[in-house]
Every structure is written in C-alpha cells, then in structure tokens.
C-alpha cells in the first residue's frame, strides 16, 4: 500500500551521495548532476530503531510473571507486587499472567492499542555470563563466534540494497559505532545532530566553509584506509544533513521527551526520521541495567531506569504519530539476571530476558514465546530463566518482515529458524 514517500535522487561523486526528499539545489549540487533513481522495492519506507539495554536488564522485573508462584518465592525483597496484591503501587496486569513494572505505565496505552508486544524468555543459545562477549554475540548475530567482523544490522542493510545509499541509512546516536552497525553499510555515528559540521572561528564568514573544504581535500585522497574512507563518508553526511536540517523539527503532538541522555537521543532519532534523510536503522544505547546490588522493587534503581526507558519510548511514539506505522522499535539486552535475588537485594548475571517490540506493524497486546517456568527444576543451570526463543529468531523476523531484507540473505550465518513456528510478532 502507499507510495515510497522518500524521493531518492542521487548523483555520483567518488562514492555516491544520496539525497532523499531534498532538492539538489538545497544541497548545493548542480541539478544536471542529479538523476532520479528507482524508489526501491515497492512499499513504504520502513525504519527500525534498535535500543540496546546495556548491562543486562532483569526481564523478570520489567515484564513480571506474577502468575508464576515461583517468582515470589525466589525474590523476597525485589519482587514487584502482583496486580491484585493491594499494595499502593503494583505491577500493571497485561494478560492475567504477565504484568508490566509500574514504571512502564507510560507505554501501557501502546500495549492496549496493540502496538506493543513482549517476547519473553528470549536470549542467546550461548550461556556466557560475560556482558562483553554476550553483547558482541548479540550485535554480530553470531553467538559463540568471536571472529565475525560485522554486525547483523549492517549485513541486513547491505542485503536490502538500495540504488542510492544515503549516508544516513544507519545512524548510531553517540560517539561510538556499536558493533551491530559495523561493516560494509558505512553507518554514521553522531553524538548529536545539532553539532554535525566543521566549525571555524566566527571572525571570517567563509571561514568554516573553507576549513571544511580543506579537510575534505585531505580526506579525499585516494588512500584506501579506515581513516580516509570514514572521512569521505563524513563529508557526504555533513552536506546532506545541512540541507535536511533536522534541527527544525520540534516534538509534535505534545510529546515531551525526558531530559535524559536516552530521551535526548530518541528525540534526535525522531528528527532524523522527519527530516527525510532515508534513515533505515537507528541505534540507541541505554545503560545502567547491571543491578547487582540494591535493585529495588516498585521503586528504586531499576524502576528509575525503566521509567527513563518508558517515558522515552512513549514520547517517541507520540512525537512520530502516524509515522509510527512505518517505524519499529526493538529493545534488546545481552542476557537476563538470576531468578533468585542475591545477598545484596540485587541479581547476578543470568540467561533469558524480555524484549519489547513497538510499532505499527506489530501484532501487539501479546506476550510471545513459550514460558519455561521459574520452579527450581525448570531453571537453566538451576539458577536462570531458560531461553525458549533464540534472539536471532526475533531479529530475523524484524529484518525480513519489517525491513524487507530478502529471506535468502544469510544475515545470521549458521542459524535456521525453527520450521513451521514463526513467532508472528509482526503482521
């Protein structure tokens, strides 16, 4: 349905500079160099926002299995009160068995509108409890293989080839490029969309432009190395962003982003989406989930992190409005946490966790995945929530169904999704 809304024009210059929804003049490029490219596969422009909860979120506090009696037995001080427990603050019931942590209240309306789904007991087939290995495995999409050079999102975007790749196909908000986006796709990392140009002193008007030209010439040399290559991409991106000017987009529909690092990043993702720079994947980190001590229950450390997450997601959905129909937000975390609370009212590194999927194409209002149970004999290695959904099954479904990555593309080498049992999270 619908047309490709992102008008793609491109001209060739060393690599390719893509202009999406911009006039050539606006970007300072002579019109004769501009040709209209194919709009790509039929259908509307889809964007994915990947949110990485670094540090391993406790999925059992985020999406509470209040119907599993073993949950309350394992957690004397950090359990989230069951919806009917009569406490003043309790978990928010979803389906009689699962409930949201009370701090997720801002995104409950999205659940009610069936725009938000949960995949529980999701995780990696490799049981490493190292944050760093597990994050690498999740981002490369190759659990157990440390030599994979690129990320699953990069492979997915490369497989979903476009005739005119925009430098903003893949963007990480932050100073570093996450592993998931490293690779051939040439993703952009930007600490802030507001500050993405060469700035010279103000005394000479043309000074900044001149300095930029000087740097550009230095990086345009034919040297094939990571610095020169990245430099060339940088200048393409700078010019395109200047023309698109995402800063002019204020939050719409009364959306109010939390004034946190996460909130500010999501707001900038929304600006990039609205500025029509052909964004396909945005990557945002939210840290602080490694709750070994003093995790808290309805309130406390973890509740505050979850409130940051949910206020941010709710503002993002509200801000994008109709555009959410073509946007998907996927949360992920390297593993979950121990079922039993430890000696410090916290939890140690565990196995499976819960992931959230939010967007127009989501068959929401449901918790997906088989529940393995929390009774001692049901636990993985006698301590952790077992994995019943390989994270690659969920990621693959997102890549194929939402981003339109061709199914034959091997973006998860060595992984074959279980036959005949698609998760079906996406319509």
């Amino acid at each position, binding site marked *: 349905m619908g047309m490709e809304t992102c008008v793609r024009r491109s001209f060739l210059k060393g690599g390719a500079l893509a202009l999406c929804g911009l006039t050539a003049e606006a970007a300072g490029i002579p019109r004769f160099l501009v040709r209209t490219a194919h709009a790509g596969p039929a259908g509307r422009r889809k964007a994915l926002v990947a949110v990485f909860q*670094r*540090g391993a979120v406790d999925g059992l506090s985020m999406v509470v299995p209040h119907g599993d009696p073993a949950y309350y037995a394992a957690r*004397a001080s950090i359990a989230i009160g069951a919806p009917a427990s009569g406490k003043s603050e309790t978990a928010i019931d979803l389906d009689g068995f699962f409930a949201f942590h009370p701090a997720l209240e801002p995104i409950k309306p999205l659940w009610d509108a069936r725009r938000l789904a949960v995949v529980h007991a999701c995780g990696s087939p490799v049981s*490493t*409890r*190292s944050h*760093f290995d597990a994050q690498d495995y999740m981002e490369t999409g190759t659990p157990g293989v440390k030599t994979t050079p690129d990320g699953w999102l990069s492979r997915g975007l490369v497989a979903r080839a476009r005739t005119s790749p925009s430098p903003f196909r893949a963007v990480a908000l932050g*100073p*570093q*490029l996450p592993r998931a986006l*490293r690779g051939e796709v040439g*993703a*952009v*990392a*930007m*600490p802030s969309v507001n500050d*993405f*140009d*060469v*700035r*010279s*002193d103000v005394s*000479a008007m043309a*000074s900044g432009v*001149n*300095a930029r030209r*000087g*740097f550009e*010439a*230095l*990086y345009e*040399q034919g*040297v094939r*190395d*990571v*610095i020169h290559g*990245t*430099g060339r*991409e940088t200048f393409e991106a*700078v010019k395109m962003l200047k023309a698109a000017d995402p800063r002019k987009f204020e939050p719409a529909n009364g959306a*109010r*982003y*939390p*004034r*946190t*690092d996460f*909130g*500010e990043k999501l707001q900038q993702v929304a600006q990039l989406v609205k500025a029509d720079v052909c964004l396909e994947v945005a990557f945002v980190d939210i*840290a*602080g989930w490694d709750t*070994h*001590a003093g995790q808290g229950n309805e309130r406390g450390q973890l509740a505050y992190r979850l409130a940051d997450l949910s*206020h941010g997601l709710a503002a993002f959905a509200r801000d994008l409005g109709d555009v959410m129909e073509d946007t998907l937000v996927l949360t992920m975390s390297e593993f979950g946490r121990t079922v039993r609370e*430890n*000696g*410090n*009212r*916290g939890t*140690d*590194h565990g196995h499976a966790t819960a992931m959230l999927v939010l967007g127009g194409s989501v068959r929401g209002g449901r918790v997906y995945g088989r529940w393995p149970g929390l009774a001692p004999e049901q636990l993985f290695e006698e301590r952790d929530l077992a994995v019943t959904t390989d994270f690659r099954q969920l990621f693959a479904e997102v890549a194929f169904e939402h981003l339109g990555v061709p199914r034959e593309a091997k973006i998860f080498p060595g992984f074959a999704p279980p036959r005949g049992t698609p998760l079906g999270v996406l319509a």
Partner: protein
Amino acid sequence: MRPWRVGLALVAVALVVSGCGTAPVASSVASPAIAPESDEHILHVLNRLAYGPRPGDVERVRAMGIGAWIERQLHPDLIADEAIERRLAAYPTIAMTTDDLFREYPRPDPAAVARRREEMLRGDGAPDGMAREAAPGEPRRIMIAAELAAARMERAVWSERQLQEILVDFWFNHFNVYAQKDAVRWLISPYEREAIRPHVLGRFRDLVLATARHPAMLFYLDNWLSTRAGLVAQAGPNRGRRLGLNENYARELLELHTLGVDGGYTQGDVVEVARAFTGWSFAYPQGDRQFVFRPRAHDDGDKRVLGHVIAAGGGEADGIAVIDIVTRHPSTARTIATKLARRFVSDDPPPSLVDRVARTYQDTDGDIRAMMLTIVRAREFWSEAAYRAKIKKPIELVASAARALDASVGSEPGLRSAGFQLARAASTLGERLFNAQPPTGYPDTADAWVNTGALLGRMNFALSLAQNRVPGVRVDVERLVAGADRRKPEEVLDRLLAVTVHGQVSARTREILSAQLRDPAIVRLTADDRGPANTDVEKLAALVLGSPEFQRK
C-alpha cells in the same frame, strides 16, 4: 623507508646492553649514544611511549639517544617534573584524603535528587548531566572526578614522565571503575593515586592486590557487600535479613583483570573465587571508608579455584591465595601480554611478540617494566608494519595536538580551566575520562574510535585549538613559524610541518596543503593586491592536526 630498517638493530642492541628493568639506571644512561637514529625511529618512540612530540623533542631525544631516553621513561622517579607538579595545585581534590573528600563534598539531599529526577523524566528542568546535581553554592561532588580528569590531561600534555602517564591510562582502563556509581564519586581520585599510579611499572600482582583491596573497586564491583550464604545481618538497614554471595568482582577479576574470558575458568570457579573474597569490604557508609576484613561475613569453608585447593579457615588470606593463583596462571600472562602488545605495537599484535612478552611475564613473575623492555627491544615494535599502525584514542589526539603546537597554560590569574577544557575535548570525541561505565574501560583499538561523528569532532578540535579557542590553553602558531618569511606561504607551510610533525606528511597531503595556500581565506592579500602579505597559519595548523596522518601514531 630504508634508514628505518638500518637503525632498528642498533636501537635494539643498545637496549639489550642497558639491561633489565631492575638494573641500575646510571650505567644504562651512560651507555654510548646510538647513531644514526632516523627521525622515524624517534617519532615512533615519542608517539607510542609518549603523547607525541613537542617541537624540538626529536632533536632532544636524538641528543640523548633513544635507548637512554627510554631508560629514563622506564624510571619516572628519576625525571624531574616540578613544573607540572606545581600546576596540579590548581586541582586540590586530587591530593585530598578519602576522609576529607567525604567531609567537604557532602551527599546532596536525597529528596532533592529524587525531585530533580522526576522533573527530568517529565521533560522539565535542565537537561540530564552531572552539572546540576547539586544546588547552587553547594560543593559539587562531581568536581572530584572532573579535577582528576583535568589533572590527567594536563599531565598527558605537560608531564615529563610521559610513559608513566601512558601506563596510568592503560592500567586504569584495565582495572576500570566508573565515577558515577555512588560512592565511587569520592573514591575515584584516591583510587588512581593509591591503587594505580604507584604500580604502573611494578609487579602486576601488586596492581591486582591494590585494586582488589581498594574501596573504589570493592564498591564498583560490589564485593564489599558479598558475604557467605545465609549470614543474617545483625545491624544496619538490612538487620535481620539473609545476606549472601555477590559474583560481580569475582567474575571480572577472572574475565577482565587476569585470565581473560577464554582463559579456562568455569562458572564454578567464579563462585569459588567469590566465596574466597567474602568479607573483603570497606568501612562504609559509616567509618573511615578504608579496607576492612569482616570475619563474620567470610565463608570459611575450603575452596577449589582452577584446580587449586584453598584450605578451610584461611580468612582474609583466601583472597590473597586467589590472587596468587590467578596472577601465576599462564592465561594471565597471555592476556596481559596481548593487551600490552596491542597498546604499544598494533591492534592485532604479532603472536610472536605476544609469546615473548608472555614469557617475560612468567620469567619475572609479572614485572611490568621487564615486559615493557621486551616490547621496546622487539623487532615487531620497530617493524615498518607497526609504524603509524595505531589510531590515536581521543585523549591521545587531544594531548598530542596540544604538544605538537607547544601549547601552554594561559596566564589569566586564577585560571585552572586548561585541564578541564582538554578533558572536555576528549569527552566530545567519545572518551570521557572516568566515565566508562563497563568494567572493560575504554577500548584501545581503531574500530572503536574511527567513525564519522568522531572524525568531525577531531577536525573541530584541531580548529579550536589552533585558533586559540580552547579556554585556558594558549598556542602561538606565529612563534612556531618564526623565521619563515610570512610573504612566502610555501616557506611558512614547510616551517609549520617541520615543527609540528617533523615534516612527516605524505607528498599528496603536502600538495593539498600547498593548494590551500591559493585560497584567499588562507593567504590574505595586501591592499594593493601585489602579493600575499600574510598567511593564515592557524588554519594551516588546524588542517595539519585534523589531517588523516595526524590521527595515527
């Protein structure tokens, strides 16, 4: 680069003569000068064992001899460093005791913090960040980490003990703690001063022990809370509660500090190590916030760690026994050798070199100075493949740029912003000192640091530094090119390249810079247009510092 190869053997020989790290220095400093030493050799050493050359450094090292220079850097106590020591008085918290820090920087009112958090989530109030965590006028405890970062940057630029500063950065990241985790805010400065600095060229085991017992690490990785299973708290907020084991420190000790993730330990080892460290705690929040062993919290049973049995009843010594076991493990020798070789040679260090450094580790019981000697004597260190193979980390780029332009601290009275501003610049490029949240610290390889946003940030920093827009940091590019005829732009460019990068740019880069001279914004014309009157040396300098070559070391 023929002279490069010729010189190597000579340097290597001289260093072999100079003896092992523990040998008396006087004799090695007095060893015959090595000649000829090519510019490339000297630049390589200044880029790897120091934060890059200052104008004149190449000549100074040549006069002293590379071998003697390295020997001195390996014995930093023998290098006079008064100028920077005096400067550091501008950052009083870096010398304060833990007690004084807690007393003078009180905790903000929790209710006020909660209120500010609520406002932030609703989208009100000032943006997130540490700056506003205290009410106006209140001493801001964030200044403790900020002053430490400022001091670190000033030392990187102006300390004569360059290798020591490189190693402080290296080992801090290896034993990382995160400044924003509660009590670490106060403990971070004593941690660097007491647990890291004294041992950077000492024995690896001493580093492990010092960090294991330091309150900052005990807090950051939660070991201070870890107790034997079933202990019931007798007092405090947890009174009557059952406490128990916390695996956090034990796991990172094995995974990151010693054996490495593939070093051959199991989840069972993690639990046993955690049991051994139960009771290693510190007096907090009440008390003197120093290390304390809590016998009641300790698990007194026997433990089995990596095949070794630690007999029951060892008490506090159990942790020491673990440290002995893990620091003598061959996987630890490999992990440390790999990390050092990655830092000083290349992102993918040659296995032959890693083997030799690991052997040195084993032969010397983890003597860091001896491992450094193995590295600087190695063919692989001096190989053409290693020359300029590394990309500078953000703090390295910032410090090396300031050094290349011979920056000095501004003379405004009461000024202490130089370090703050340099730390801020590094933070904009992605390396906010003491704010790496995960225990891995900041990475040491190019793939983490080379990306569009960061590269743009580097160019912008080059511009602001060369144009004197970094408050508190003075550069005088006019002075750097003094002697060159300002009306001859090519001569100015040559002089600039000679002082800042010792002329080490590719022919193509030289050509491009030269082409810039035809830009009217760079070369200002005289009023009657008869010829160039002046050259915008600042912008040329910025282009040099922001160039692809300058990002390498």
